[in-house]
């Protein structure tokens, strides 16, 4: 829903990394793995 979308947009950046929650190596690896077509 638009509300959920709005909520996630505030909590996570477009790559799925949280703006506020600290990240560890495994989580960051997962974020990077979802990033495709970087060129």
């Amino acid at each position, binding site marked *: 829903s638009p509300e959920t979308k709005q909520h996630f947009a505030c909590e996570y950046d477009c790559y799925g990394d949280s703006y*506020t929650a*600290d990240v*560890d190596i495994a989580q*960051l690896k997962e974020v990077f793995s979802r990033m495709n077509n970087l060129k």
Partner: protein
Amino acid sequence: MEKKVRRIYPVSDPGTTYFLQIAWQKDLCTGFDVTLTDGQSAWIERVSKEDISKEAADIEMEQEKYTEELRKVLLSEGGLTDTYSFDISKEGINEDFLHFSYEKKLKDLAFRLGSLKLQRVSSPAEVISKLISYCLDCIAGLHAKNNHLQRENKILLSDLTDLQGKLQKCVEAKEELETDLYTRFILVLNEKKTKIRNLQKCLKEAEETVVEDTQAR
């Protein structure tokens, strides 16, 4: 001058070993010198290009194929005894002539590839001596080549071991780099997230103050 020495055992006298030496320039089909010795006497003959052509024509074989057969029968050591056979007979009071023939066996029949009449040499010691010298030179040459190859192989093995070490180090360095970068990244990112949390807190407080002020007014 190319040479080849091999052992042959005549079918009519299989207990006697003869040594057959063939010497030729560039290609066998241009002609070759045949030497046969039993370790005591020696007989020689020169086979010309024309002799070879004539022999090929006599047995109705194509020249090139005939030369190939000659190579196999005269120049191979031992391995083809099922396919080729030799025979020797001597002639004359002092065995001045030696008849040397070679055949190819095909299933149940055999056909003559060639026959030669060799002449006895007056000084066999010289011929035998040269033959042995040739063998010793071959041995020395092969020893040198083998030593060279062994040294080369040793170097290659050493290079291979080094390279395996380098590859292993590269793989480990790649893994270390990955871990190192991720460690640094999360430190920097988490610093930014702390900043974001603080800003969000300040913003919330500021927004609450605005609301309170509006209400108070």
